[in-house]
């Protein structure tokens, strides 16, 4: 495999996601960055397990080589479902914050909260 394989792409995506999570102030974009980090983790798990001629983990799978390890696939399934659940719940919280403070800017929300606490 060359340098640009699934693992390196996953590391680059993880970096982009982390940077977005730290630097961007928009809460929705922060959630998108969180989703990007999750996708990069999934890509990393799947591509660590990949082989060019690997057969799918089905007993009647007609691949050329040996079957790939089914365990990471089962783990990734949990990761996808839990990411969906977390994203739905986090979006609800963002909606509640927007309803109360009329902005998705995390810094302005922090300032509003500080002002409310000061009063």
């Amino acid at each position, binding site marked *: 495999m060359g340098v640009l394989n699934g693992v*390196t792409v996953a*590391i680059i995506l993880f970096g982009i996601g982390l940077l977005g999570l730290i630097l961007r102030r928009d809460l929705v974009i922060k959630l998108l960055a969180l989703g990007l980090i999750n996708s990069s983790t999934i890509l990393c798990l799947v591509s660590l397990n990949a082989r060019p001629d690997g057969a799918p983990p089905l007993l009647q799978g007609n691949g050329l080589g040996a079957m790939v*390890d089914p365990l990471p696939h089962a783990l990734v399934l949990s990761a996808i479902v839990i990411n969906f659940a977390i994203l739905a719940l986090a979006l609800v919280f963002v909606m509640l914050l927007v309803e109360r403070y009329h902005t998705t800017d995390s810094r302005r929300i922090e300032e509003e909260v500080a002002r409310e606490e000061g009063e």
Partner: protein
Amino acid sequence: MRRFSMPFAVWATLFVTLFCGLVLFAFDYEGPRVDSLGLSSESLAYDTGAANLVSAIYLNIRLYDTLLEVLVFSVAVLGVHFYLGPRGVEEQVEGIPESHVIRTSAGLLLPVIVVLGIHLVLFGHVSPGGGFSGGVVAASGLLLCAVALGAEAVGRRFHETFLERIEWGILLSILCLACAPLALGRLPLTDVLPQGQVGSLVSSGSIVLYNVLIGLKVFIGTWVIIHFFMRHRGEI
């Protein structure tokens, strides 16, 4: 609250990412192995009766993992209901303007999507698929229906209060199915039904039952989440 400056954040991110990369590359990975569970693929399939080894893992030998996953999903649906339920009940969801193209294409696509979802659920143990993916596919068909006919028209037919009762009933039956072997004097989370012929539709014991229950649960849960979001926003 302390704020980080932008160059600091960039350097910190680069450092963390490089560290993760180095750890991954230093990890002495000898290539994929099929016997990571101490089982060969054939014996895994014949022990569980499922030709799809991923299903065999997450619905048989690592069933507790899937049970907790289903619980996490239920908690998310409950959270969406709890925070969005009391709000916006009176609001009418505005439909998007009447469009022949969307309505006709929804009528053409909906049967295909629903059949694909049912196929993914029912054949999840012999081919790629399973309860989670099948349920989400069917719920996306319902979302297409909501886009074409309006969310309220679909929501009137699929009542949340009734659907949520069914959903909790399904969760209860999944837990009962997991504990059922106790009644027969065996350990919980084991499979008591006969395995059958590997690769046929009626095989793999309770994996089919779990797939159907999880598929229904994910279908209802996803629709409840989508419908609460649509009702709260007031539009699709």
